[in-house]
């Protein structure tokens, strides 16, 4: 990509993603109870976060977090 093209591109749409304790974040989203009862899969950078570790883990600015509905076999 040329310098000119880079200059012409719109700036990235960056939102403020601050460092936060996982449990705090889940509470903010109203999902803490679901996470603690296992009705929510918490993946931090692709790894499952165990229920007992929810209170200790910190989600950093560069971390990717996914909160997913558990799946079962049909």
């Amino acid at each position, binding site marked *: 990509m040329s310098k000119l093209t880079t200059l012409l591109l*719109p700036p*990235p*749409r*960056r*939102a*403020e*993603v601050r460092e936060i304790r996982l449990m705090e*974040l889940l509470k903010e*989203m109203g999902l803490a109870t*679901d996470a603690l009862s296992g*009705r929510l*899969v918490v*993946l931090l*950078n*692709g*790894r*499952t976060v165990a229920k007992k570790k929810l209170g200790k883990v910190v*989600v950093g*600015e*560069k*971390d*990717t*977090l*996914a*909160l*997913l*509905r*558990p*799946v*079962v*076999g*049909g």
Partner: protein
Amino acid sequence: MGAELRVGNWTVMLDGPKTLRLVRHDGIEVILPHKVSIRNLRIGQLMDYVAELDELIEKGSMTAKKGTTKFKLKRKAKKPGIWFLMARGGVNYDIELATSEALLIALKLQESSIEDITLKEFEWRTPVMFRGIREALLGVFSASALSEVAIAQVFKDRLDRAYIRHGAARAELLVEDKHFYIVLEGAGKGELGLFKKLADALRLDKLPVSDSLAARLLLGSARVPDILEDKAGVLVRKRILKELFKEHKGEMKFEGKHLVVGNKYGTWRINLKTGELRLNEYLLCIMPAYPFKFRGYIRLPGLGTFKLDSRTARVLAVAHIALRPDEVKDKSIKEQIRTARKRLVIGDFFII
């Protein structure tokens, strides 16, 4: 030299296993590429084709309605050999066509959508176990379905842009360098709305559209939210998978619409359009555990937190199974993985 068949004013010839060439006594010619082999094409279908083509050539115009769109195809009085296709309603565009292109599109507009439903049904249900049978079944049930890829080719040559409005979804379909793209201008609050927010955050303003879906959108037989199960969905999900599972970068390989993961269990294939998961070609039956109030969330570094549409959420959930199978707790999924692991695939057949 191939066989020729005379049907009314037309001579019908085979032009390959899926293509018919029809030549009228006055020299008008139309090439009809089909979705599958035409060996099961009925003679009645051929008679329908020639009757519809003759009527259109005699009248010089036709109208059709597909979904919320009205189409008008008309021969230009002042320009011999040129036709004008106008779409109004859900889909809006105007294009000029050569006679052979106009005739092909006219037949497609008059085609029943039953074949499409049957084709989709079989694509979904037919197991990979006997792939040869799939083609044969499609031949029997969809022998008359004209190829959307061929129709797309016509639009690529003739169309610059079309405007589409389906409920809250508003979009512009563009042709650029012989590829289709869609720009979502409005998407409502449903699944498409969630998808758009994610795509916008990833700076994917112009999303790719497959030839087949573009043709169906332009002919009124598909809707804007169908992009969730097309190239656009694949592109957005690929980006998220790469971000979420960056620690597994070496295990993930993207092949077209599939994410392929290789590990001690065998080869996992995830269809990024549908969220279908296969291990050693064995389809795993997986569904959400709870009728939950949400489908999922993703928090992307520097971009924020986004609600997921159901397909994207499913893709992430099944990718997690493929990449970390040892973390699976559900008994039924574990049992399916055990069964699939024992399977060895040789060519198109399984040895169990």
